[in-house]
């Protein structure tokens, strides 16, 4: 929330003595406020609370950086930025300047101070480590006068310094280096704000520069405090000619001296290894006079060259048979989005609007014994304190489109840490939060069940004791996997052929276990809803993708008719599946229902990840190949952690089973996916779900199979891929794509078989077919106005994908007008017709088709109207894109309307819909999506760090209605999924999510982009959408991880079976490689799967046709 919850005072002393007195008088309730970047952050997160901040920035002279005798004195209030820019520092201490210039981000560097950093003593910060090598001295002032503290004695522990009460850091003196002294520093950093290791070294040489006569060696960010090792320093002394022989021992001593932590950043063993690598590189580099960059040792291609090539690759000739379609017209939402006038949910304020805050369960599994809300209710400004028991008069207390298992507020028990238990409604959000902190809840804890393995074992504690109702929109989801009385949620099976017979025939069999991590979508915009429930009807402004399914959830909760529920979705700050179905809308609605005023609920990012995350997949996969090298059998067993509520996990499970098949000509397939309820944050949709889960095992094993057969992995795929128009999946839509041609394009794009990669650089590919498009249901209305302009009413939400531009282009094309003459509605159930959802790459092809049909409806009406005007049979009249024509006669739209209705500004409205029955949309899937991705990576063979050099893909899209928006989807999804390949993984530590924040869960940043990106856009007009377009947007997301895993094998000879491919995992894979560990042991269906088989008495019916 954009406000601190607990008020504090600001004191502004004029002198250090006064500041010191203020601190002493406050007795721990006051803190020095310097830059505040770490202090305010921690206070905002609730980690620290002070009544007073003593702002010492008003004391003059504390921010000066200036020579002071044999040292350079850095004022405690000098910002990181000013130190990095200081000419004196840059000249005397280039590494300090570089370190200060790369701390956190430019905003932190402009505000945060070196002094504040040292006094905060956050263990993952690195300046103190470098200052140890410099023998810096800290000057402090306190009640007993001034004193000087060597930096070595200053940081004495995690968040702990040698400062006595009332003492304040004044300046940091960094002694100038002698002419023969060298200093070097390296930081290992996987998260922007958290270096995981810093290594600093100083070498003092004799006058001949042949002998090291003095040294410093320090390590930080990997232990509770930065540490020097005198043993290591002693080992570095001596002749530089023989230094290489002493470094390893020195590094071992340095690692021994530090209390290296085994934590989320990495194991102590890996940190020890890195200390060895970096101490050697620093010493050798320093002796050669090198000043390397701090961070990943990557040489980036010049940006102008990279962007120039990327832009050139996007150029294409627009199709001659359209005037609007096929053009990269600027988005219609450009101006509002670059001027700050585009309205998102959190920007909306309503008269009398109150604010709600949520108290969440601190435990994973417990019965609620009591909730004491009295103290919270007594806080002035609090309007209501709501618990689950207050909802009993509602028609329903649970919601969910597939299974109604999602609580609005916990009822008798809590089923995960983070579940909403109490809502406090108050005049403002800070008051609501303070009051929520006063609610007392007594829990009787139950045994938590954190993994699907635990949840599916016989006799596991039951998470949901009652069978739940089936929801209002189970749709095509297989409900037979849910077994009441167990924690089993899904059991999805895809089978055809005889798997045993096929494996018996197979000459080569390859097996392996793989893991795709639990992840978090992190849309930039967190969940927010504003509900106004008054007068027997409710309006909700919200951040959703599924306006109309949420409408039904709300109607079902309150027993309201659909017409009395209005869901209005303004601009949405990214969806990617995370905003599909209902999230905070029910809570906002019940808050408003209780207080009779509009209520806004804005979640933090931390609360957002506790509302919905994405599922993981533990996979065992087996491939059978016949004597001709033909792929004949694929068998898989998959376990997924669905979390505490089903949300859309059932479809994720189903799509994992179908998307694991792959575009190959299997004789037999046997894929089984199970998911289970657990006491974790609910798992649901994330862009490309099922595809991402299926392709990592599928496409890595494809490379492994090729390697075992001794054939080229691309050639091997080409031999086995499905041909265009082949019914490779019995009963499904034929494959309307040439995947082989697409693979050849991508392989060519990364120079497969033509360019030789340098050492430690490699290439890889990955591909998949996805059954995209979701349920083909939707309708649109189009109005053609008397002046020729057009209004389009569609329920599709603008999530950033550009639907309001592309759908408007369809109407503009059909009526021969410019895009500036078309207005398109926001997704608003009070205005726009029903749309099933916005997701699954369905909007352009499905809503676009309904708009096309609505335009055709108008044209038909126009022909009839013109027939009356011209007194001619309608059959003689044709509708063009500009008006009606009869022989040589032509009448523009506006004239038809004016002459027929007798006034100028009348309108004609048309409607269009699609449905899955009795139509061309009946065949599943509505659209195959067949992404192919090629990657080139370069790796550090010692540290396991890697970075992407090229990322190339295919968008086989039928027709790009707006090419820039179309391939923009690919650029976005390629980089988004790069995050999962690199470092994204949600981690549970016991019952708690340990990294559910933007600080702990780092998504890709600009520094991660490769030197080369390109999307081959394939346009064969072979899809079901308008003008032959096909589903597009998610696809390439699915195959980045396997392409990179395969490229890392090409580069380093390692097999990576578990994403993300963190440097530590790559390092361990190198150790396995060197030890000759077989990544593909043939062990058969694993025990972790067999242990779930006791529930087979609920055996579902296999579904050869998928879902």
């Amino acid at each position, binding site marked *: 929330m*954009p406000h601190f919850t*607990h*008020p*504090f*005072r*600001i004191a502004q002393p004029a002198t250090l003595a006064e500041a010191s007195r203020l601190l002493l008088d*406050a*007795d721990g*309730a*006051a803190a020095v406020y310097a830059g505040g970047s770490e202090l*305010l952050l921690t206070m*905002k997160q609730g980690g620290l609370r002070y*009544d007073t901040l003593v702002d010492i920035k008003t004391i003059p002279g504390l921010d000066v950086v200036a020579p002071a005798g044999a040292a350079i004195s850095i004022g405690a209030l000098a910002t990181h930025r000013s130190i990095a820019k200081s000419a004196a520092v840059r000249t005397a201490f280039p590494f300090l300047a570089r370190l200060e210039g790369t701390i956190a*981000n*430019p*905003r932190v560097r402009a*505000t945060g101070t070196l002094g504040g950093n040292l006094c905060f003593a956050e263990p993952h910060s690195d300046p103190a480590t470098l200052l140890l090598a410099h023998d810096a001295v800290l000057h402090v002032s306190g009640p007993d006068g001034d004193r000087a503290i060597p930096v070595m004695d200053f940081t004495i522990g995690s968040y702990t310094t040698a400062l006595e009460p009332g003492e304040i850091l004044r300046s940091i003196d960094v002694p100038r280096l002698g002419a023969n002294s060298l200093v070097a520093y390296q930081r290992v950093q996987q998260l*922007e*704000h958290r270096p995981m290791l810093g290594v600093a070294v100083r070498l003092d040489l004799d006058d001949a520069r042949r002998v090291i006569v003095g040294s410093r060696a320090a390590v930080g960010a990997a232990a509770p405090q930065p540490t020097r090792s005198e043993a290591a320093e002693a080992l570095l002394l001596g002749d530089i000619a023989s230094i290489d022989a002493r470094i390893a021992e020195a590094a071992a001593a340095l690692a021994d001296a530090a209390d290296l932590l085994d934590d989320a950043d990495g194991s102590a063993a890996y940190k020890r290894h890195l200390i060895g690598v970096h101490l050697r590189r620093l010493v050798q580099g320093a002796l050669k006079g090198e000043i390397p960059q701090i961070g990943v040792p990557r040489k*980036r291609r010049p*940006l102008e060259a990279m*962007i120039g090539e*990327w832009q050139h690759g996007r150029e294409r000739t627009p199709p001659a048979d359209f005037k609007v379609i096929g053009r990269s017209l*600027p*988005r219609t*939402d*450009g*101006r509002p*989005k*670059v*001027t*700050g006038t585009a309205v*998102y949910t*959190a*920007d909306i304020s309503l008269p009398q609007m109150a604010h709600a805050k949520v108290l969440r369960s601190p435990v994973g599994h417990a019965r609620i014994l009591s909730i004491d809300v009295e103290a919270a209710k007594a*806080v002035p*400004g609090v309007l209501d304190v709501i618990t689950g028991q207050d909802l009993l008069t509602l028609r329903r207390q649970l919601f969910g489109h597939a299974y109604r298992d999602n609580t609005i507020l916990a009822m008798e028990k809590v089923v995960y840490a983070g579940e909403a238990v109490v809502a406090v409604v108050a005049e403002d959000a800070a008051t609501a939060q*303070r009051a929520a902190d*006063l609610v007392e809840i007594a829990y009787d804890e139950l045994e938590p069940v954190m993994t699907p393995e635990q949840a599916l074992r016989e006799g596991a504690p039951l998470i949901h004791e009652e069978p739940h109702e089936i929801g209002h929109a189970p749709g095509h989801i297989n409900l037979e996997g849910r077994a009441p009385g167990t924690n089993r949620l899904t059991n999805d099976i895809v089978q055809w052929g005889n798997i045993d017979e096929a494996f018996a025939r197979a000459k080569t069999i390859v097996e392996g276990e793989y893991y795709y991590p639990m992840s978090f979508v*992190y849309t*930039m915009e967190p969940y927010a809803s504003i509900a106004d429930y008054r007068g027997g009807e409710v309006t909700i402004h919200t951040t959703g993708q599924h306006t109309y399914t949420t409408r039904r959830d709300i109607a079902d909760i309150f027993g309201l008719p659909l017409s009395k529920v209005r869901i209005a979705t303004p601009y*949405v*700050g*990214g969806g990617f599946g995370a905003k599909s179905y209902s999230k905070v809308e029910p809570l906002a609605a019940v808050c408003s229902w209780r207080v009779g005023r509009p209520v806004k609920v804005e979640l933090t*990012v931390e609360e957002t990840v506790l509302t919905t995350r994405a599922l993981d997949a533990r996979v065992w996969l087996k491939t059978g190949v016949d004597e001709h090298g033909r792929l004949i059998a694929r068998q898989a067993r998959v376990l997924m952690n669905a979390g505490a509520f089903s949300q859309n996990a059932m479809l994720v499970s189903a799509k994992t089973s179908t998307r694991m098949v792959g575009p190959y000509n299997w004789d037999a397939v046997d894929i089984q996916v199970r998911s289970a309820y657990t006491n974790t944050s609910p798992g649901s949709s994330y862009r490309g779900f099922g595809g991402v889960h299926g392709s990592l095992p599928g496409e890595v094993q494809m490379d492994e199979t090729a390697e075992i057969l001794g054939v080229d992995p691309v050639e091997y795929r080409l031999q086995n891929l499905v041909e265009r128009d082949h019914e490779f999946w019995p009963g499904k839509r034929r494959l309307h794509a040439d995947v082989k041609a697409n693979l050849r394009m991508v392989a060519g794009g990364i120079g497969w078989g033509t360019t030789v990669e340098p050492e430690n650089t490699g290439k890889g590919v990955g591909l998949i077919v996805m059954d995209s498009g979701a349920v083909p249901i939707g309708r649109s209305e189009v109005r053609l106005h008397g002046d020729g302009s057009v209004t389009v009413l569609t329920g599709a939400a603008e*999530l*950033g994908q550009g639907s309001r531009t592309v759908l408007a282009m369809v109407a503009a094309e059909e009526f021969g007008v410019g895009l500036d003459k078309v207005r398109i509605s926001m997704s608003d159930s009070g205005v726009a017709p029903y749309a099933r959802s916005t997701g699954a790459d369905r909007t352009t092809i499905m809503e676009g088709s309904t708009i096309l049909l609505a335009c055709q409806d108008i044209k038909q009406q126009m022909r009839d109207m013109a027939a009356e005007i011209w007194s001619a049979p309608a059959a003689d009249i044709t509708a063009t894109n500009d008006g009606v024509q009869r022989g040589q006669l032509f009448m523009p739209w506006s004239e038809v309307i004016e002459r027929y209705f007798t006034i100028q500004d009348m309108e004609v409205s048309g409607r269009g819909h699609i449905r899955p029955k009795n139509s061309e949309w009946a065949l599943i899937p509505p659209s195959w999506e067949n992404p192919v991705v090629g990657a080139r990576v370069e790796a550090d063979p010692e540290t396991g760090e890697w970075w992407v050099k090229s990322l190339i893909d295919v968008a086989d899209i039928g027709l790009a209605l707006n090419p820039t928006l179309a391939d*923009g989807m690919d*650029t*976005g*999804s*390629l*980089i*988004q999924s790069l995050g999962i390949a690199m470092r994204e993984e949600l981690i549970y530590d016991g019952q708690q999510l340990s990294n559910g924040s*933007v*600080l702990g869960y780092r*998504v*890709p940043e*600009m520094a991660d*982009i490769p030197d080369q990106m390109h999307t081959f856009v394939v346009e064969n007009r072979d899809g079901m959408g308008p003008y032959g377009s096909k589903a597009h947007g998610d696809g390439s997301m699915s195959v980045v991880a396997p392409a990179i895993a395969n490229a890392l094998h090409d580069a380093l000879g390692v097999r990576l079976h578990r994403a993300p491919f963190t440097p530590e995992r790559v390092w361990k894979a190198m150790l396995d490689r060197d030890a000759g560990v077989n990544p593909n042991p043939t062990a058969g269906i694993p025990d972790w799967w067999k242990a779930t088989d006791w529930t087979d008495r609920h055996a579902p019916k296999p579904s050869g046709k998928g879902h």
Partner: protein
Amino acid sequence: MAEQAAESAEAGGLPEKITIQMTVNGRPVAVEADPWEALSHTLRTRLGLTGTKISCDVQACGACTVLVDGLPRSSCTYLAYEAQGREVLTVEGLETADGSLSPVQQAFIDQSGYQCGYCTPGMLLATHALITSEDADDDDAVIEHMSGNLCRCTGYVPIVAAVLQARKAAAASRG
């Protein structure tokens, strides 16, 4: 003092309000605020400037970036009172006086450097600060500077294209 503050908080009474006089988007503003409030709150709630977005709220994502005296700041963790007497620039202040888009805004439109638009105000301001700084011509510095702002939609490449276009425009206008 601890008890007093806690009491006043729990009794709903807030510490004394202060009046912040600052320049926002070129216009002098005097606004009543709590001494403990973040600038993002002052801008969004008290001044109605909702173009500044809140995402991580802990200075890591850049969505709430504003410029104070020309330097980018995370308004989520920048105390409003610190803006006393300073110049604050938000996305609403980027348009030129005649209502035309600034070169940075135009570059983001031309290069399709946005999709959902939620990170865009912060991206625009980060770019605005970058292209007038000495870091603008150093590619590594450009990447380092812009890596402080997260975007989930575009894959950054179109944003890099926009930054380069804006950098050229700034260089051209300097002559």
